[in-house]
C-alpha cells in the first residue's frame, strides 16, 4: 500500500541574492512497511526531502500526498495536528525534553493526543521495553548515553502510532556499537510490527541494513534500488 507520494517536488531556498535549489523535481513513492535509506553527499538535499515529507517545511513546487491527503494544502495548525497523528520523528540530536524522564518523554505525545494517564503509562513502559530501556524509564536524557537517547526518541516516535517514522541521520552522533544496537531495534520493529522507516544516512553500515536505498545528488534522485 502506497502511503507517501512525492510529485515533481521542488524546494528553493533564498539565501540573500542566491537561490539554492535544494530539491529539483523529485518523483518518489513509499509503501507501507518499507525500510528505506536516503543517501547522498553532504548538501545533496536529504534533510530537505525528509523535512518536506514530514511537513516541517513547505515545497516551492510539487505535491506531497500522504495517505491521500495533500499536505501542501494544510494550514500550519492543521499540519501540526497532522504531524502529531501521522508521523514519527527521530532527529540527529535534541530529540528529547531535557526536564522530563525517558518515560515522560514518551508519554508527552500521547498527552498532546489527549490519551488517558493509564494508557499513556502502559504504552510508554511497553515501548521503552521494546527499545531495551526498561531499566532507565525514570532517567532524564542527560543521564542517558547518546544511543539510549536515540532509542528513547524511537520509542517516542512510535508512541503516537504513526503511519511512518522519519529519521534524519539518527546514528550520526553514535559510536558503532550504539549504531548497530539502534538499527537492530529499528529493523526488529519494522519486521515484527511492520513499522515503516525512512531514514537518511552517511554511514555505509546503516545503508547495508536498508532494503531500499534512494540516492540523491544535487537535489535529484540518481538511483533507487530495492534489494
Amino acid at each position, binding site marked *: 500500500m502506497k502511503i507517501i507520494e512525492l510529485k515533481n517536488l521542488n524546494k528553493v531556498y533564498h539565501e540573500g541574492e542566491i537561490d539554492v535549489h535544494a530539491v529539483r523535481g523529485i518523483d518518489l513513492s513509499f509503501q507501507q512497511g518499507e525500510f528505506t535509506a536516503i543517501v547522498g553527499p553532504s548538501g545533496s538535499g536529504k534533510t530537505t526531502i525528509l*523535512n518536506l515529507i514530514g511537513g516541517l*517545511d513547505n515545497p516551492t513546487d510539487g505535491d506531497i500526498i500522504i495517505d491521500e491527503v495533500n499536505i501542501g494544502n494544510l494550514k500550519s495548525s492543521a499540519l501540526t*495536528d497532522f504531524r502529531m497523528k501521522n508521523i514519527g520523528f527521530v*532527529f540527529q540530536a*535534541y530529540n528529547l525534553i531535557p*526536564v*522530563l524522564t525517558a518515560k515522560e518523554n514518551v508519554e508527552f505525545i500521547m498527552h498532546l493526543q489527549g490519551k488517558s494517564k493509564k494508557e499513556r503509562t502502559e504504552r510508554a513502559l511497553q515501548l521503552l521495553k521494546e527499545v531495551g530501556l526498561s531499566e532507565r524509564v525514570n532517567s532524564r536524557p542527560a543521564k542517558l548515553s547518546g544511543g539510549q537517547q536515540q532509542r528513547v526518541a524511537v520509542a517516542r516516535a512510535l508512541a503516537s502510532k504513526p503511519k511512518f517514522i522519519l529519521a534524519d541521520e539518527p546514528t550520526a552522533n553514535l559510536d558503532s556499537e550504539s549504531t548497530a544496537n539502534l538499527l537492530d531495534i529499528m529493523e526488529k520493529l519494522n519486521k515484527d510490527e511492520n513499522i515503516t522507516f525512512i531514514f537518511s544516512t552517511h554511514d555505509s553500515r546503516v545503508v547495508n541494513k536498508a532494503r531500499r536505498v534512494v540516492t540523491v545528488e544535487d537535489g535529484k534522485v540518481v538511483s533507487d534500488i530495492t534489494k
Partner: protein
Amino acid sequence: MILSIAWKNIWRNKLRSLVVIFAVIIGILSGSIGVSIMEGMMKSRAKAQLNNEISHIQIHNSNFKFNNEAKYYIDNYDSIKTFISKLDGYKSSTDRLVISGLINSTGGNTAAFIYGIYPDIEKQVTEIYLFVKDSSGGYFNQDKKNQILISETTAKKLRLDRYVITDKTIELLSINNFPVDETPKLKTLLNIEYRTHKDFFNELRNTLDSKIVKEYEFLLLKYAVTFKHRANLVVTFQDINGKITGDRFRITGIYKTGNRMFDEMSVFVNKKDLSRLSGYKETYSHEIAVMLSDKDIAKPFAEKIKNKFPNLKVETWGEIEPMLIMFSEYMVIYNYLIILIILAALAFGIINTMLMAIMERTKELGMLAAVGMNKNRIFKMIMLETIFLTITGAIVGLVSNYFIIDWLSRKGIDLTKQMGEALEAMGFDSLIYPEMGVEYYFGITLLVIFVAILSSIYPAIKAIKLNPADAVRTDA
C-alpha cells in the same frame, strides 16, 4: 503536563532564574514597604485626627459652623445624650462650649478657639490628655479654678518657651547618634536657660561644630525646649451678650499632638469656668462630640440622630474632614501606581530573560513543534514559564514582606531626625508604624499576574514564530 514542564524549565538555568526571581522579590519588597509606610502614616494621622480632634460624629446648632458665632448653641444635650446612648455602637460623648478669643501673655498673644470641656468626660472621647507632658504640669486638676491647657505651638507664640540643655537632653540626643566628641562641648552649656530660640542657637553655634548644629537642629530644639511653668495668661472673648469679657487663667499643662494646625488653634479650659465667665449656661453646648465603637458606622448612626433631631447639624467625620477619605482614596491609587512602575521596570528584565531562554532552546522548541506541539500549546508553555518565574518572586516577596511589615509595625520607624519637622508640620507623626492591608496583597498579586502575562506575550510570540524545519537542522 505542560504546567509541570514549564515549571521545570524555569530551573534549567537556576542562576539566571534566581536572579530574576530575586529582582522581583526586591521590587515587590521595596514597593510594598513603601506602601506600608505611606499607609501607616495615613492611618495614624487619620486615627489621631479622629481620636484627638474630630471624633466620629459632631453635633452643632445648625447655624453654628457658618459664622462661628457663639450665640448658636444647643440647649438639650441631656435629651440628645439619652437618645444616642441607647443606640447600637455608641461608645461615649461629651459636650463643649466653643468661643473664639484672644490669649495674652506678658511676651505675646494669639487667637484661638477656647474649648470649655468637662476634663474627665473629655478623656472618654478624645485623647488630648495623653499628649500633655508631665514636665509641663499636667492635665486639669479637679478643684482649681481657671486652669488652661495650651499647646506647645501656642506656648511658643506666647513666648513661654525656654531652652535648656539637661542631662536628659544629652541622653536623648545620644540615643539619636549625636557624635560623642561633640558631647563634652554640649555639656559646657548644661542647665543654662535661654529665653529665646535665637539666643539658644547662637550659643550652640559658638560652642559646637556648625554642621552638627545644622544636622541636629530639630532634635536639639525638641529635646532642649521647656516651658515656663504655670504661667498666667489673660483670656478675652465675647460673652453671651456680645460684650468683651475675660479673666486670668493659669497654665495647668502643655500638650502637643502631631497636628500643628490643630494645636495652634485650640486651647482648653474647664467648662464650668467658661460658662461662668461667658454667661452661657452650663447646660448649653456649642459642640457635641460622639465616639462610636467603629468609625465606619458613623453614617447610619448620624442618620438616626438627624431623624430624631432634625434641627441639629449632625456631621460624620467624613463630612467634617472630607480630605481624610479623599486622601486615603488617592493614596491607594498612588500606591498601586508606584508598584506598577516598579513592576514595569522588572518586566524588561523578565522579557529579556525569557528571550534568552527561548534562544537557547531554539532546537528543542523546533522539535516540540515538529512532533506536534501546536502553537497554542507552545505559547501557553512560554507564558506559564514567565508567569511562574514572576509569581515565584512575587510570592516570596509578599511573604517576606508580611513578616518585615509585621516586625516594623511593632518596632516603628523613627524619622524624627531625618524629617521630623517637615512631617510634624504636615500633621504626621514622625514615628511611623508601617502597615499594609490584606487588600494590597490581593491587589499586588493581581498586578503581578497582569504584568507577568504582558511580559510573556512577546517571548511567547517569538517562540511560536520559530520555523520547525530551521530549528531542527542540527548544522544551524
